[in-house]
């Protein structure tokens, strides 16, 4: 059975966003998720940053300090090879969860 929880979903969203953006700071990631999901999904800071730091400690993403276009100093995150592997696994996992949930919803 596929294992999943809310945190897993957030990790997946962050990893996928970084895959699409190649390199971004926390605020940008949150904005990206909101914008792409048409404001259906919003990420709370209280969950976003612990998740980012946990993934950094796990070696899935790496971070460096850069200056934004607006001239602010920000911590930019990017996927590592291990992160890419992790993303692939979680995407597959997610598809299965969706399929499973779907099947239950359609059950008559």
């Amino acid at each position, binding site marked *: 059975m596929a294992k999943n929880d809310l945190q897993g979903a957030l990790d997946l969203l962050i990893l996928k966003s970084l895959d699409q953006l190649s390199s971004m*700071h*926390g*605020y940008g990631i949150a904005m990206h998720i909101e914008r792409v999901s048409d404001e259906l999904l919003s990420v*709370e*800071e*209280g969950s976003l*940053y*612990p998740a980012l*730091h*946990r993934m950094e*400690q*796990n*070696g899935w993403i790496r971070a460096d300090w850069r200056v*934004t276009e*607006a001239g*602010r*100093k*920000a*911590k930019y995150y990017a996927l590592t090879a291990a992160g890419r592997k992790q993303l692939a696994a979680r995407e597959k996992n997610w598809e299965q969860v969706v399929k499973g949930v779907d099947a239950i919803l359609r059950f008559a």
Partner: protein
Amino acid sequence: MGLLRRIWALGNLSRLGGENESELHEHMQMRIDANLAKGMTAEEAAREARLRFGNPVAVKERVNAEDAALGLGSLFRDLRYALRGFAKTPGFTIVALLTLALGIGANTAVFQLLDAVRLRSLPIASPQELAELRIAGGNLGFGITDGPYSHFTIPMWQEVRRNHEPFSAVFAWRATDVLAGKLSESNRIHALEVSGEFFSVLGIAPFQGRLIEPQDEAGCELSKVVVSYPFWMSRMSGQPITPSSVTVLNGRSVQVLGVTPPSFFGMVVGSSFAVAFPTCTPPNPRHEMFSFSVMGRLKSGWSIERASAYFGSLSAGIFESTAPTGYSADAVKLYKSFRLAAYPAGSGVSELRDAYDKSLQLLLAITGLVLLIACANLANLMLARASARQREMAIRIALGASRRRLLRQLLIESGLLALSGAAFGVALAQPLSRLLISSLSTSQYSIQLAIEMDWRVLLFAASVAVMTAIIFGTIPALRGTSADPIASLKSGARGVSGSRERFSVQRLMVIVQIAVSMVLLVGALLFVRSYRNLLTINPGMREGGITVAYLNFPTLKIKPENEAAFKRQLLEDVRSVPGVQNAGTTTNTPLGGSSWSHNVKVGAIQGATKFTYASDSYFTTMGIPLLTGRHFTNEDTNDSPFVLIVNQAFIRRYLGNTPPIGQPVHVMPEPQYPERTYQIIGTIPDTKYGSLREETPPMAFAPAAQFPLTAQGPGLAMMIASSSPAVISDVRRAIGAKYPNMVLQFYDFQQNIRDDLVGDRMMAMLSGFFGVLAALLVVVGLYGVLSFFINQRRNEIGIRIALGAGRWQVVRLVMRDTAVMLLAGVLAGTVLALLAGRTASSMLFGLQSYDVATLAFAFLLLAAISSLASWLPARKASRLDPVAALRSE
């Protein structure tokens, strides 16, 4: 990887904290920027950003926690908390640390010794490749064996030197003594006689000059030596080696070729050499003289087993071609049946190892058991401490601390204790093991052992510490944290009565303590009684007031035919010194471990007997009475019939009920000892021969005057009936004045015998000491546990007294508790002692390991001390004021 990073992050917490704060701060700023862009006022923008962000402190904490593993961070807090707790209870801390330091120290000290004599490799290149060749099963007493490491005759060595396929190279060596300094004031030093390959095969590089090489084997005169580093430093004051460097050995000046490195002590663990000199091949080497040890370096691809098989298949040829002549056909047949085998030699050879290996292992077991008792005491202490802290634990659980967290806290405390105890213990082990070594050193033979802290010792101490922490820490920790917070908070500082369960654990620990100390006490009693047996045994001859003298005169060049007369004159010279009551010569000094035997045939019975050539005054000097027949007289010479005095064991073995006097004894030929027929002229009682432990073997004495001319040599052993130092120095002066070049050595006979018992003395002393210590620990443990019980049961006892129970009934209540634990402990202890005793039985003398008297005495001793230990708390309980006890609830 993640964990490592988190540990690393611990050291950077403050810097990381700052970084995280600015990251979150920038996030907030970006939100404000965006809000401003949407057209909000600065105030509105900041407010909206704060609302969305939530509690900034909480977010920051959560982010920080992700960076540094929370567990590790709080570890330091737990450690600090534990240290503060110890500082607040200094009495407990000191007792616990002292117990652990002594326990772990004693264990480490014994282990260190075991490590030094048994486990450590020689300081040479690739020691694991080194193998020794020996006759499988030994030479069975054939010929003459020079020393404990002598397994090869020179002809055997020459065979192996020519043919040693499994070895890349071989060498021969033997341990011997030489005289250093001028003869008149010389002293014996340890020497190695080595073949030319010795140093190169071992891979020893010279510290100075050069070492012995094959071309040095040319002459048989001692002319060049290599000296050890300590000898070089002490005797030659570390002067650089030049071609003109010399030292005086055996009365001659010899050239010093070089110095060995400081780490090389020779091949014998427990001893060290001072000089090494090259061996030589005499033109007619003796075929029956076993003097050398032969070792080789295995070629790659050859195992010890394959090498053994190789030399085993070669043995028939080797022993065929090296068989000595002058022996009976049976003896030669025995010689030719010998087989060589290879044995690992990477850790050198050691008489010490053979002699004390078992003692040390037993000692390690004893110290281990003492530590176990100490651990049980500590566990009880911790339990008491835990119950005193029950309230604290309950509050912490109530406030939401997880059980795991509390458990960790308690385990950290015991781990900290064990670790610091181990650190002190390791430091303590150094003087302790030196003490142990000095207790094994004798007046003549000091043990030279490098006691080092190697990884094995440290690993041992660490694992002992971990084990103690587990033993004394886990149970109290599990109990301490299993408390139900509501119950403990409600019941106040003391329960109405403690839970039965905890009592049974403490009871069990006391029972274990009693059982273990029973084992230790039985062991102690056995070893002390065995030592006493050895000390008080009657060897059948005088022990005290006898001096053994060795007189050597190789430089006097006395002709063999004159030697008998010269030796007789020497004896008369010694006897005429005022104060010397008597003196006798002998070819073998008793109770010194040496042995001299001949094969004999008496009637139809063939066998061996100890054989000694002694002067007639020998028997009177040693106080050995003549039972029947006559003494030797001056008429018994090499020109008269050969005569013998035999002991009772000889009569039992060879004559049975035949009257011994007049019976012929046929002595089989040996090189230098022609075939002869002696006639028994007297009998003496049984006396000890080689050591006190041995059964008396058959012994025969022939007159010194009938010693074969072919066997004469320039040396003599004499027993002098005086041990007064003044008289002995008179003897030394008188003989020294008459024969300036004679080498004289004197030893106290009784001291020599005692020296042979140092191993028994050590076991008696140490097992006695640890036995007493164990008993003391049991007293302390029992006292503590009973006091604790009584404190827990104060109310119950108070009610009993209030209801009219007499003082004695209360005492009986407590004593019955003790009696049950005592009986259970002693029962288990007796079983264990009997099982353990089997391993010690070979070390005991004059008693069995299942000695009933010893068991009974140990039981009485334990009963006495446990009554003593429970008497005080029992009395205290009986004097309890029921009103006070009940009111304090």
